[in-house]
Structures are given as C-alpha cells and as structure tokens.
C-alpha cells in the first residue's frame, strides 16, 4: 500500500513539474514577501499593541463591521460602517475629532476596514491604524467585548 502511494506521489510530482514548465500562467516558485499582503490605506497595529493601547486609553476604537452593535463591540468603540458612513460619522462626530488617534477594526477580512479608513482619511482624519486579526482575534486574545462584560 505504501509503495502504491509512493508511485502516485511520484506521478503527482512529475505531472506538477511538467505542468509548471509548460503552463504560461505558472506561479513563481517563491512568492514575493508582499504578494499576499493587503494594500491598505492605513498602517496596521498588532493585536498586542492594540490591547495595550486599549488599556492605556490612548486610541479611540472604531467598529466597522456591517452588523456591528454596541453590545457586541469593544467597550467604548464607536460604530462607523461603510454602508452608512455619513450617518454613523455624523453621530460620532461630537466625540471623535480628526486629530484623535483611531484604531479601526472589523472582521478577519481587512479590506472593508481599509475602505472605512480611506473614508475617514478623506474627511481629514490622519492618525488611523487598522487592527490586525479583527474582532474574533481580539476576543480570542482575551480583549473585552461589551456584551460579554454585561453577561458576566
């Protein structure tokens, strides 16, 4: 059985190398270090730094998830989403000033968060960071969530 499996592995390797040689759209053998990085309009902040920043109260947190609610957000975060950016920002404007340092977060996918960051930048907000990993990673790292605090 192991011998049979090894024969099939060998066929796979030969077919793989062969197809790699003849296919015009072949992948590079090694991807460039930036090939799979998302091009974001604002720099990333690591989860650890975001947690430290939350503890020190340096930054204002912005929840960009489309289904964000205050009882599922990071405590103290403002909700500003792509779909209702103007209305959401108008509600938060009395509290969130353009000079404030912001940390934006969303789900695991950073592209929608980047979209909100770009809109903030267009309104003059310049000190923006995007949290790596999103809310699920925050929760997994032990960061507080409003609803969970209420439950306890």
């Amino acid at each position: 059985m192991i011998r049979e499996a090894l024969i099939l592995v060998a066929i796979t390797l030969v077919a793989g190398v062969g197809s790699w040689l003849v296919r015009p759209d072949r992948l590079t053998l090694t991807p460039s270090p930036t090939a799979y990085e998302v091009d974001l309009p604002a720099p990333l902040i690591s989860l650890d730094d975001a947690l430290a920043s939350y503890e020190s109260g340096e930054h204002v947190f912005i929840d960009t998830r489309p289904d964000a609610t205050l009882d599922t957000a990071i405590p103290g975060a403002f909700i500003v989403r792509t779909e209702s950016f103007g209305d959401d920002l108008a509600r938060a404007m009395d509290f969130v000033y353009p000079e404030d340092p912001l940390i934006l977060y969303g789900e695991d996918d950073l592209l929608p968060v980047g979209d909100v960051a770009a809109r903030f930048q267009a309104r003059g907000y310049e000190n923006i960071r995007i949290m790596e990993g999103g809310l699920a990673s925050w929760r997994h790292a032990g960061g507080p969530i409003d609803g969970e605090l209420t439950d306890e």
Partner: protein
Amino acid sequence: MSETRAWQDVTSLVCRWAVAGVFLYACIDKIIDPAAFAQNIDNYRMVPLVLLHPFAWLLPIAELVIAIALIVGWQTRGAALLASLLTVVFIIAIATALIRDLDISCGCFHTDSGSTVGRDLLLRDLVLLAGALVPVWLGPGRWSLDRWRGIEGVRAGTLQNP
C-alpha cells in the same frame, strides 16, 4: 462469489467513486486558477510563504491523480491512503481555523468564493475520510484495474497466485 464478498465489492466501488468525484470536482477550480488557490491557502496562515506556491500547485494535481486512480481502481489502496491523508490535512486546517476564529472561505471547491470555514465542513470532511478509508480496508474490489492486472499477471506468470 459469496454474498459478503459481493457487498464488499459494491461498497468499495461506491466509496471509491464517491471520493473520486469529490476530489475531481475539488481540483478543477484550483488547477484553473492556482494564484487564487494560493490566496485561499494563505488565508489559513498555516503554510510558510516559501512553500505556498509549490503547495498550491501540487495539491490540486495530487487530487486529480488520486481521483483518476480511484475511478479506474489502479493502485487503489495507495490512492485511498493518500486521499485519507489529504482529508486529515484538510480536517486539521479547518479545525485550527475554527479554533483561531478565522472567518475565511474554505477554498475546498471554489477559489473565488464558497463555503466559509465552519463545523459543517468539519463534519463533511469526516464523512469524506470515512469514505476514503473504506477502500484502504476492503481493497480495490472486483471492478478495478488492480484486480484485472492481478488476474492477467497470474495468467502470464509475472505474478504469483496468492
């Protein structure tokens, strides 16, 4: 032919073809668009960057080779063993993604969209694993190239009658 043997042959054939069908369907999109599949794999954050492209290139070809081998019943036990091992890798990838709360597309059948990683996928892969293990256990069965080659080999004297 005993009734038990007949059932074993039918069961092996059904499982071989079912697993082959899944692998065949799964490899098509990945072979067409390896770059998108590489992105799918990268989303799991399990494969080092240096291995990402070789993995994305070879995995769908392995699925194709395994599927063809299972359909015709050639090197059947080896193919079923490889299918089982690959499925275990998929299960580990999905389980670790669930543990890390990753909200990602699984990249199982379609590279552009598809099922989000969840418990239902874990269950589906466990069923696939069970199906792949059946030919490992029961062997290629009556309707397979392996059996035909065995009979021909014995007739020609190149194989010993077991």
